[in-house]
């Protein structure tokens, strides 16, 4: 969460991607270089801009499930708890 480890982990978990493929996929989706993925300064800016949640989330920033909605859309993932959230907030 200091940089992009959680996003790379999601690709490993959801698609069984090896580390190189997972980093490449996330970097392309975020519009950054692979080296940027491990830089906490760059990634904090990127995460703030894209509302992906940050380590120390300030007022009105995307947090928790809010950030995961954006992560699901950006990485084109069907995140389990986001699906549950949508199901429980739709009548």
């Amino acid at each position, binding site marked *: *969460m200091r940089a992009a480890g959680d996003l790379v982990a999601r690709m*490993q978990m*959801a698609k069984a991607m090896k580390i190189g493929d997972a980093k490449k996929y996330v970097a392309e989706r975020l519009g950054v270089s692979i080296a940027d993925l491990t830089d906490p300064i760059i990634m904090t800016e990127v995460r703030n801009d894209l509302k992906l949640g940050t380590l120390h989330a300030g007022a009105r920033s995307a947090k*928790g499930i809010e950030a*995961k909605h954006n992560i699901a859309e950006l990485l084109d993932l*069907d995140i*389990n*708890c986001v699906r549950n959230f949508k199901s429980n907030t739709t009548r």
Partner: protein
Amino acid sequence: MSKIFSRYGDGTPFETTEKELMEDLVAGTQDAAERGKIDPLSQDDLDHIADIMKCRYTAVGVDPGYECVLTYDGAPIKLIRTNVNVDRLQALQIYEKLMGADTLEMGFVDYSYKPIKHIVTYEQPLMEQALLSTTAPIIYGAQPNLGLYSQPDGPFPNPAELLPAGRIAEAKESYEKAVEEAVRDMVYVASAMYESGADGIILDTVGAAGDADALAGLKTAQILKAKYPDISIEMGMAGEFVLGMHGSLEFEGVRLAGLYNHQMLELAEQVGVDIFGTVMNTNTTESAAWNLARAITFTKSCTDIAKIPIHANMGMGVGGVTVNDHTPIDITSKASKAMVEVCRLDGL
């Protein structure tokens, strides 16, 4: 020639020479190669590990480009065990917000699927609340722990008592019944936690009670993947090979007794496991160099053939790390760096 700081597998510090260090590395890789019938490490790999072991820094990290993902072993349980008085939801927030964890793992204090079955209705709302307030993926983890299915803790006669008495057939039957019961419990709990939104399920310490335990883990993964094709499953091993406590159990025609991690990996891939956790045991009376070369040789036999991510277990007596509750940062970081760089690991 300057002395090199090192440790034995029990953590005891000692000084060694460059020549002795390389001798230990060679002996370690040869031991693994002979036991596992796998390739030993190349001289280049041994030289690279030697360079890391000779480094005088207390803590080291991987070279740029080798950064990998970290998963954790029963994360909140570690805080509770060390008398940090927070509930599990706060523990996960601490891991994410203060430690910057890549992934979170929620586990019950009795980290086995059997006892969780009775309280899973309390685990589900907690998982659901944790998922609302955290961003990193949350995995729910526990062990098959087949030991809990034999008397006096469970319903079936105890194979550890039957085997010494020569009652082999009864012991085998007990293991077989335990597998059926354990699979039912694991599928029940994992299904509940997945339906509550968990990002993944960890079948941890698979094979701890031998081949029956390994069979239960594989069968559970197979059933869960058929039931929920999108479920993410991480399977972590208990040791470097599967003990043949039953001896004749097979999965899809493969005898489980005596399988090393690279052979279990192939079965795990067959049932759709997404991440495989390797475990290599540390010998307390051998040097860190011997243990590390040995652990890396076994692990590399997995990463060389893996189609799925490999997360090596590192720490507290596995992966070339010393057998201590609080492992020294020198050997922990050097072993991790060497393991990641030589094996090109996907995670730890």
